[in-house]
């Protein structure tokens, strides 16, 4: 399948009065059509900043894209003009967020909000747009679209609101859907419904999905490939099997081991000591050095280069994870 997004050496820093915060510091990956890429990381790992800055949704300043490129459909999203970005956002690249309540306008009816992308990006008339939107609502499992179109967001539960957000994202047939923690605010039974829905829609439309989450279980269930980020750095990437069974990075390894499992009665849960570093006070070395059990002298002095076996890429000074 064709490649739809090609990100090289992406660096996004915040320039603040207290210093430079390296929120995203060197990200490389490719995304193919029909593929689901999971981006895993804890809070402050830079996963959300990356996606928001990619779509030009963060104010510059304080943010500055220091280097890198993001090739999408023959152009570079990093250097694209604001007009170009506006024609891409919510059109060829759509996004859904964690909090479906805050991403819908509480003053406007669902219908008014849903037809907006079609009227802006596809020059549809109101009537045409409403017709298309009804189809989208049915597709996301909202059985009574006419009632839904006339409802306000507060009349819907969290799961239904997320369905509305997905319907809105789908109206323009995006090539990439970015889902930033789409199920974190939902209950597990509803999460299962939404993830199933995303999978079936993806199968039908062949769009690529970037799924950002801190839940390793969700990634294991829906992603094809996976990036692991920590403190703005890319630590490891590969197929989900590479990451979950053949991880070469001490952080990924420790993260997996410290996750409680539903299917196993664990006698002990090995935890990662310490806390994530302050992003404005990072040295030249690996940001995980203070918490890593295999730390060596060179880890403090330089960030490692990639070790690659086919698709699997890991950034660690260790020759091999013991």
């Amino acid at each position: 399948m064709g490649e739809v997004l090609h990100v090289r050496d992406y660096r996004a820093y915040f320039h603040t009065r207290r210093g430079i915060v390296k929120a995203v510091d060197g990200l490389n990956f490719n995304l193919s059509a029909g593929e689901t890429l999971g981006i895993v990381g804890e809070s402050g790992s830079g996963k959300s900043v990356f996606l928001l800055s990619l779509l030009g949704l963060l104010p510059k300043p304080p943010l500055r894209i220091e280097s890198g490129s993001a090739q999408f459909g023959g152009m570079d999203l990093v250097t694209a003009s604001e007009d170009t970005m506006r024609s891409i956002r919510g059109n060829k690249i759509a996004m859904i967020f964690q909090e479906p309540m805050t991403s819908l306008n509480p003053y406007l009816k669902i219908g008014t909000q849903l037809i907006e992308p079609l009227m802006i990006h596809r020059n549809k008339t109101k009537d045409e747009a409403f017709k298309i939107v009804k189809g989208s609502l049915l597709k996301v499992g909202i059985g009574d679209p006419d009632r839904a179109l006339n409802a306000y967001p507060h009349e819907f539960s969290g799961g239904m609101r997320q369905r509305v957000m997905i319907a809105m994202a789908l109206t323009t047939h995006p090539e990439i859907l970015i889902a930033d923690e789409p199920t974190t605010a939902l209950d597990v039974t509803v999460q299962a419904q939404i993830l199933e829905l995303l999978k079936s829609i993806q199968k039908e439309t062949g769009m690529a999905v970037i799924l950002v989450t801190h839940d390793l279980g969700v990634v294991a269930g829906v992603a094809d490939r996976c990036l692991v980020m920590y403190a703005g750095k890319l630590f490891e990437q590969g197929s989900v099997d590479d990451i979950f069974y053949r991880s070469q990075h001490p952080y990924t390894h420790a993260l997996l081991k410290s996750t409680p499992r539903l299917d196993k009665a664990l006698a002990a849960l090995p935890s990662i000591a310490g806390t994530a570093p302050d992003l404005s006070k990072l040295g030249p070395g690996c940001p995980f050095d203070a918490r890593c059990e295999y730390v060596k002298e060179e880890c403090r002095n330089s960030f490692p280069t990639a070790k690659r076996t086919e698709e699997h890429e890991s950034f660690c000074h260790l020759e091999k994870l013991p």
Partner: protein
Amino acid sequence: MSELQPVLTVKDLKVHFKKSPGYFKPVERVKAVDGVSLELRPGETMGLVGESGCGKSSLGRAIIRLIHPTEGTIDIGGTNFLALKGGALRRARPSIQMVFQDPYASLDPRMTIQEVLAEPLNAHLRLSSEEKNRRIQKIISAVGIPKTAVHKYPHEFSGGQRQRIAIARALILEPKVLIADEPVSSLDVSVQAQILNLMKDLQREMNLAMLFISHNLAVVRYISHRLAVMYLGKIVEAGESREIYKNPLHPYTRALISAVPIPDPKLERSRTRIVLTGEIPSPVNPPSGCTFHTRCPYAVEKCRTTPPELLSFNGSPQLVRCPEIGRIPRQ
């Protein structure tokens, strides 16, 4: 463990909130907790799981009397906790303490850690300042915060460290019962494991009875000995944690367990999910009969009319609120 006398006994607890939908409309009753009974023994952790709106937090808050139960009894170490008033209630409070979900909201930003930890001591015990300091030093090192940090303010700590401080505050009075309401939900995975291990260790050392409220079934499996599953204000299944995870009986427990993603791609690919339709109904007008019948894939006519009881399954200690278990196919 079961030979021990329970330190906390809750019987038929109900928490009904009054809700006024409008000036001229009749007052509605939200049945947040609708007849819950449970027992906790020293050194035992009971996990209380359920989805949002199932009443698990209301139950926890009612047990510690942050909200007043509508009906039922709570017995702590032989005293009827709900009948206590004034001084007697204050003297009983040290035996039951609570840890909340959000360590950013539950610590006063204007108090130093020393002040945060001294407050329960000042409120409940008359101690010399040396004794007070000794206790604060002791608990703070037990939760893994450096002793030199006591004069710092909450904002100087990370989320995980704040939760350690909140745990220290709850345990400084040496309670018999600890209620922990989603204590690790706002923490990152790497920090979550630290806090879970800390709670497990402290519980063992202090022989605490702990009610661990959470929506995360994987976390609960790790920490709890016994488990209670709530749905719309009622316990639908309860028993030994190990048994329920191995062999969930109630259709809701099964769906809940099958919906939790497991960080193992091969396993995830081969799993069959029970995907429930719809969402949890409103506790204002809970469905008739079995409250789960609207989402239950096995519901029959009887489920719509007759509310089932929480009964022992085949004489085992596992309790389940579903008379149709025998009819439901095993996985």
